[in-house]
């Protein structure tokens, strides 16, 4: 069974990788399994400077999902390149750096720092984090601004740039098309849907930031729909995510048009979810009549 997938900058031995923000910089999960089994790894968001993120509580559980408002807490791009990338380099897997910021200049600053490392295979441009108030969200919901930040980052990045789409938009296709025209190498989708939970006792939102991003199984139908729609109008490769828990889910994402997938929230319930999916994927592909990942990609469009 051929699980390999070739994408711009990413030679994946299988299409499974942990999603950004749900896997830190890999250290914790490397205590559960050898990260070498992964197709790639998506690091937690990097910003220009260290950020302390939002006040707590930062997470809440919902039906078949969860809300989070971490607020991009991270040690800053410099520190990540100095201490986290070297840790991940020991594994023989492509490292994808998730880049966030509050201004185009900050995005550029982060990419400039990341450029200094030879160990980053691709950039995931996070224009869609709904939990940062300073304006980061604006990039993700306006096609023109998304295009501008994509162009500026593309102009300086040493490695291919994947842009991460927010589902909190009226037209996901318009966003994807603007980003394609701006020269992106790929798309990753979807980020979380903005939601809220209110505690009946305290009478306040559970999450200190009030709103948080909804992830997990609950959002899978929305992710599938958006990937399906984008695949019909855009030629860029897509790394799909949103509620994946099992190898069968991976297949559904491939059918919809994803070339590879990322697993986020499911890591919390099962730290071994990625290696388990990788192990089961060949059987599931075979059961449904495929002899490679590539064969299953986009079949729902045929």
């Amino acid at each position, binding site marked *: 069974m051929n699980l390999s997938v070739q994408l711009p900058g990413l030679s994946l031995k299988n299409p499974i990788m942990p999603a950004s923000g749900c896997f830190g910089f890999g250290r914790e999960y490397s205590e559960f399994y050898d990260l070498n089994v992964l197709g790639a790894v998506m690091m937690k968001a990097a910003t220009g400077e260290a950020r302390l993120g939002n006040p707590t509580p930062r997470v809440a559980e919902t039906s078949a999902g*969860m809300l989070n408002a971490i607020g991009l807490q991270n040690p800053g791009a410099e520190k990540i390149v100095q201490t986290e990338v070297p840790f991940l380099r020991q594994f023989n897997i492509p490292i994808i750096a998730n880049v966030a910021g509050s201004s185009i200049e900050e995005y550029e600053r982060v990419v400039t720092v990341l450029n200094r490392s030879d160990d980053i295979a691709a950039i995931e441009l996070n224009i869609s984090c709904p939990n940062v108030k300073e304006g980061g969200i604006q990039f993700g919901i306006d096609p023109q601004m998304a295009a501008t930040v994509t162009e500026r980052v593309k102009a300086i990045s040493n490695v291919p740039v994947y842009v991460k789409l927010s589902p909190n938009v009226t037209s996901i296709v318009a966003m994807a098309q603007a980003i394609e025209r701006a020269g992106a190498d790929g798309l990753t989708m979807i980020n979380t849907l903005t939601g809220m939970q209110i505690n009946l006792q305290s009478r306040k939102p559970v999450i200190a930031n009030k709103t948080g991003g909804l992830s997990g199984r609950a959002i899978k139908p929305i992710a599938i729909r958006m990937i399906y729609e984008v695949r019909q109008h855009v030629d860029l490769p897509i790394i799909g995510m949103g509620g994946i828990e099992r190898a069968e889910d991976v297949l559904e994402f491939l059918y919809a048009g994803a070339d590879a997938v990322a697993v986020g929230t499911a890591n919390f319930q099962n730290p071994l979810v990625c290696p388990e999916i990788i192990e089961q994927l060949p059987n599931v592909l075979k059961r449904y009549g495929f002899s490679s990942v590539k064969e299953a990609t986009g079949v729902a469009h045929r």
Partner: protein
Amino acid sequence: MKKRHMMTVIANDEVALETFELVLHNKVIAKEAKPGQFLHISVPGHTLRRPISIADVEREKGEVTILFKVVGSGTNQLATLQEKETVDVLGPNGSSYPFDSLQKGDTVLLIGGGIGVPPLYFLAKTLYEKEVNVQCILGFQSKEYVFYEEQFVQIADVQIVTDDGSYGAKGLVTDVIAEVAPFKQYYSCGPLPMLRAVKEKLANRDGYLSFEERMGCGVGACYACVIPTNDAVGYKKICSDGPVMRASEVNI
């Protein structure tokens, strides 16, 4: 490598109002667990695991006891667990109460509030075995919520307080701190306002606090559970750096 552990239910009993004592079997966890650490427990049908402190272990028998209060749908479901059913847990997770510096004959103070009491029992028992003198102040809402008093009195000096005075002294744990014998170190676990009050009351003393926060991963990867600290980094993660922290290092 760390792994997911399956634990088998040995017993599950309501030991006080809405409070359950769940005894689980797993040799690895029983062997490795240290006082202050927690289990991160999967509850079928729920996205997130539930962190629950380890309240006791019988290392030989491979038994691990936890005590939990039913406060929502996860703990409600845990309360229905029957003998022989299995529970999927990560653990033992997090930091533990340090006590290597204590000598036989030293005296310590343990201050627990409500559902913060369980990890202190494991600590008290461990210190008792080291022949450290343990004094406990245990606070509960009211009489019906008091648990493990008998267990504690066998190994420690115990003072119980309740919010409404229906059992022991009426008041807060901090109200009676002044009355205890001299101690070398203190250890506390309970709701944040209590920990704040304890830290303030014992500002010039060396002590350890154990914190609660809503968790995602429970292993240090998602940054859901941070707590501000006084060091250069500015935060620690309760699930992996904690739940036990030196009182002086946290900024609460």
